[in-house]
C-alpha cells in the first residue's frame, strides 16, 4: 500500500516537473533571440520533458502492455527527436543561415 | 449563451469552412488553392465527427463498462472521405506539376494571360 502511494507521488512529481519544463522550454522557443538558441530550448524540451512525462505515465500504468507501448514511444522520441534536431541544425548551418561567411554566428 | 457553447464545434466548423473556401476561390496560386480545399474538406470531417460525439462517451471500441459509446457511423464515413480527400490532392498535385511544365508558372493569372495571348 505504502509503496503504491510512493510510486504515485513520484509519478505525479515527474508529470508536474515535466509540464513545468515543457512550459519553460516553450517560453524559450518563443522568446530566445536567434534560431540556434531556440533550437537548444526545443531540443532539450523534447528529450527531457518527454522522458519525465512518459516515465510518469509508466509509473501510473504499472507493468502492463501499456507501459511497453509507452516505452516504445519514448524510445522513438529519443531516437528521432535528436536526429531531426541535429539534421535541422546542420542543414541550417550548411545553408549559411544566421552565420557570416566565416561560419561564426552573426 | 448555452446554445453558443453547445454548438461551439459547429461554429468552428463553419469558420474553418469559410476560411478554406475563401482560400480556394480567392487565391491565385494553384497549390494554395488545393491547401484551401483540404482545409475546406477537413472542416466537413469535423462536422461529421462532432455530430457523432456523445456526452461522457468513449470511443466505439467495446470494453467492459465502456458505455456510452460515440456513434461509429460518422467515423466510418469520414474514413472514406479522408481517403477521397488525399486522392483528390494527389491528382491535383500531378496536374499542377504538368501545368508548371506546360506554362512555366502556377499562378492562375499568368496562365490566363498566356492563354489569352495565343
Amino acid at each position, binding site marked *: 500500500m505504502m509503496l503504491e502511494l510512493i510510486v504515485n507521488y513520484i509519478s505525479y512529481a515527474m508529470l508536474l516537473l515535466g509540464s513545468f519544463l515543457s512550459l519553460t522550454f516553450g517560453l524559450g522557443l518563443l522568446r530566445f533571440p536567434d534560431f540556434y538558441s531556440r533550437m537548444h530550448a526545443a531540443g532539450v524540451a523534447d528529450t527531457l520533458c518527454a522522458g519525465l512525462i512518459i516515465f510518469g505515465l509508466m509509473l501510473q500504468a504499472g507493468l502492463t502492455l501499456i507501459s511497453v507501448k509507452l516505452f516504445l514511444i519514448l524510445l522513438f522520441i529519443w531516437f528521432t527527436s535528436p536526429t531531426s534536431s541535429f539534421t535541422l541544425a546542420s542543414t541550417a548551418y550548411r545553408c549559411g543561415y544566421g552565420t557570416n561567411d566565416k561560419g561564426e554566428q552573426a | 449563451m448555452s446554445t453558443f457553447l453547445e454548438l461551439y464545434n459547429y461554429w468552428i466548423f463553419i469558420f474553418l469552412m469559410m476560411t478554406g473556401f*475563401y482560400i480556394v476561390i480567392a487565391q491565385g496560386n494553384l497549390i494554395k488553392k488545393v491547401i484551401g480545399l483540404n482545409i475546406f474538406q477537413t472542416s466537413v470531417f469535423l462536422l461529421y465527427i462532432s455530430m457523432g460525439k456523445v456526452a461522457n462517451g468513449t470511443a*466505439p471500441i467495446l470494453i467492459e463498462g465502456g458505455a456510452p459509446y460515440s456513434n461509429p457511423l460518422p467515423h466510418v464515413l469520414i474514413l472514406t472521405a479522408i481517403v477521397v480527400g488525399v486522392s*483528390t490532392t494527389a491528382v491535383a498535385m500531378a496536374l499542377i506539376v504538368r501545368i508548371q511544365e506546360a506554362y512555366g508558372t502556377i499562378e492562375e493569372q499568368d496562365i490566363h494571360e498566356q492563354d489569352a495571348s495565343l
Partner: protein
Amino acid sequence: MEQLINVILLAMLAIVAIATAKLKDLFATIILFGIYSLLTAAIFVSLDAVDVAFTEAAVGAGISTILILSTIALTARTEKPSTHSVFLPLLVVIVTGVTLVYGTLDMPGFADPDAPVQQHVAPRYLNDSINEVGMPNVVTSVLASYRSYDTMGEVVVIFTAGISVMLLLSSVKHREDELGNLKDLKHHPILLYVSQIMIPLILLFALYVQFHGDFGPGGGFQAGVIFAAAFILYGMINGIDNTRKIFQNHILRWLAVTGVILYIGVGVVTLFLGGEFLNYNVLTEDNLAGQHYGIFLVELGVGIAVAATMLSLFLTFSEVRRSQ
C-alpha cells in the same frame, strides 16, 4: 475538462487556418498545414474518433504533406500577391457561412445523447455488432462489414487516384538540371544509422496495425499508409533510385491491382456461394467465423492496395525533375 481541451484545440485550429490563408510563403503554409492536420487528428481523438484520428494523422500530416512538398519543390516557393478583387469571393463565402449558421441554429446540441443521430441505425451497430460480426472495434465492423461496399468504393478511389497520377506524370521528362534532383540523405551518418533501426520497427508496427484493427484503432488503410511510410523513409534516406530497384513500377502496379481484386474478389466469391455481394456469412458454416475471414481478407486487400498506391504516388512525384 474535456470541454476545455476541446475548446483550446479548436481555437488553435482556427488560428492555424487564418495563418495558412495569410502567409505568402508556400513552404510555411505547408508546414502549418502539417500542424493543422495533427491538430485535427488530436481533436478527433478528443471526440472519440480514434480510427479517424489515426487516418487523418497518417494521411493529412504524412502523405498529403509530402506530396504537396514535392510539388512545391518542382514549382515555385512563394506565391504572387493576388490582384483579384476580393469582393466576390468574400460575398460567396459569407453567404455560404450565413446559410450554415442558419442551419446550425436548429441543430441538436453538441454531444446530446438524444439527438436523432444517436437514436436510429447507430444503436444497432453498438449493441448487436459484437454478436453479428464479433469484433470489439465497432468502427471496423461497420467499415468492413455493414458498410463494406463503401469501403470497396474507397479502395477504388485510391486506385483511381494512382492510375490518374500515372496517366498524368508518366510522360513528364525525367531530366536532370543544374540544380540536381532531390538528394538522398546518406551523408548524414546518424540519420542513416537511426533509420536502419527504425524501418524494421515501423514495418512491424504496420503489421500490428493491420492485424490488430479488430480490437483497437487501425485496420487495412492505416496499415497500408504506415507500410508505405516505412519505404518513404527508406527512399528519402537511401535515395529514390535505390528504392525503385526494389519497387519497380510494374511490381507496384501488380500489387495495387491485387489489392483491389482481392477486395472485389471476396465479394464475387460470396456471390458464388449463394449470398449477397460481400455477405461474409456464407464463407463458412459459422457466421461469425465467416465474418472474421471476410474482414481479414478485405482488410488485407485494402492494406496492399493502399500501401502500393501510396508508395507509387511518392515515387512518381519524386522522380519528376524540376524543369526550367
